[in-house]
C-alpha cells in the first residue's frame, strides 16, 4: 500500500513528528511504500538543519533526512507555511525540499491512504 504522510506539528514540543517518523519507518519495513511526507503548519520546523539537540536525544530532522536517503522518501515542506516561519532553502536539512500545497493534495489523490499526524 502507498501511504502519504502529513506532519502538522514541530519537533520536540509535540509527539506528532515522532509518531509520523515511526509510522513511516515501520510501514516501509513491512513492505509498504511511503513516497512522500508533507510538512505543514509548525511541521515545517522538522526541516531545519540548524537544530542541535543534545547528543543523548534523537535528532528529529536528521532522522527524516536519513529515512529519505535510505528509502527515497520525498520530504516536502509547504512554501507558504515555511515563509511565515523563516524556513528557507538556506536552512533546509538534507533531502528536504520546499514546494506548494499542491504536493499535499496530490498525495490525497494518488496514494491509497493519507495519514495525518498532529493535534
Amino acid at each position, binding site marked *: 500500500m502507498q501511504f502519504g504522510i502529513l506532519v*502538522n506539528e514541530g519537533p520536540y514540543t509535540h509527539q506528532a513528528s515522532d509518531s509520523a517518523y515511526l509510522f513511516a519507518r515501520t510501514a516501509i519495513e513491512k513492505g509498504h511504500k511511503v513516497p512522500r511526507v508533507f510538512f505543514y*503548519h509548525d511541521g515545517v520546523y522538522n526541516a531545519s538543519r540548524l537544530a542541535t539537540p543534545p547528543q543523548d536525544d534523537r535528532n528529529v530532522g536528521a532522522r527524516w533526512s536519513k529515512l529519505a536517503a535510505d528509502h527515497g522518501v520525498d520530504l516536502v515542506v509547504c512554501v507558504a507555511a515555511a515563509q511565515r516561519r523563516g524556513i528557507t532553502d538556506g536552512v533546509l536539512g538534507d533531502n528536504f525540499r520546499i514546494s506548494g500545497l499542491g504536493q499535499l*493534495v496530490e498525495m*490525497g*489523490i*494518488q496514494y491509497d491512504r*493519507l495519514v495525518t499526524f498532529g493535534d
Partner: protein
Amino acid sequence: MSDMDDMDDGSGIIKKFMFLNRKAPHGTVYALEGLEVVLITAAFDQDVSLVFTDDGVFQLMKGIDSKGIEVKDFSKTYRALEGYDIEKLYVDQASMDARGLTEDDLIVDVTVLSVDEMANLMAEQDVVISF
C-alpha cells in the same frame, strides 16, 4: 488566488476530500492555514466537503472582529467559497447546541447534521484531513 486556477495532477482522478475544521478561527493558525489547503484542493477539481465541529463552528460565526488582537480577519473567505465551487458545508448540531449557536448566527448557508449523519458522510469520503 488566481494562480490556483486549473491545477491538475494529470491523473484525472476525482476523490472525495473532507476537511474537518475543529478549532476556533483565532488563537491558533490551524483554521487559516487549513483554509489554504481547502482552496488548493478545489483548484485540483476534487470533490470537497467542509465540516465544522467542536470550536470549529466559531469559524463561521457572524460579527468576528479581529482588530483588537491585530490578526488578519479571514472570515470573508468562507463567503467566497462558492466562487471556488465549494458548496458542501456541514455543521455538527451538537457542537452548535453546546455553544448556543443556531444557523442564523452563521455567515454562510450550511447543512446541519446529527452525529450519526456526520459519521455516515465521513464514511463515504476517500480522504479526511483534520485541522
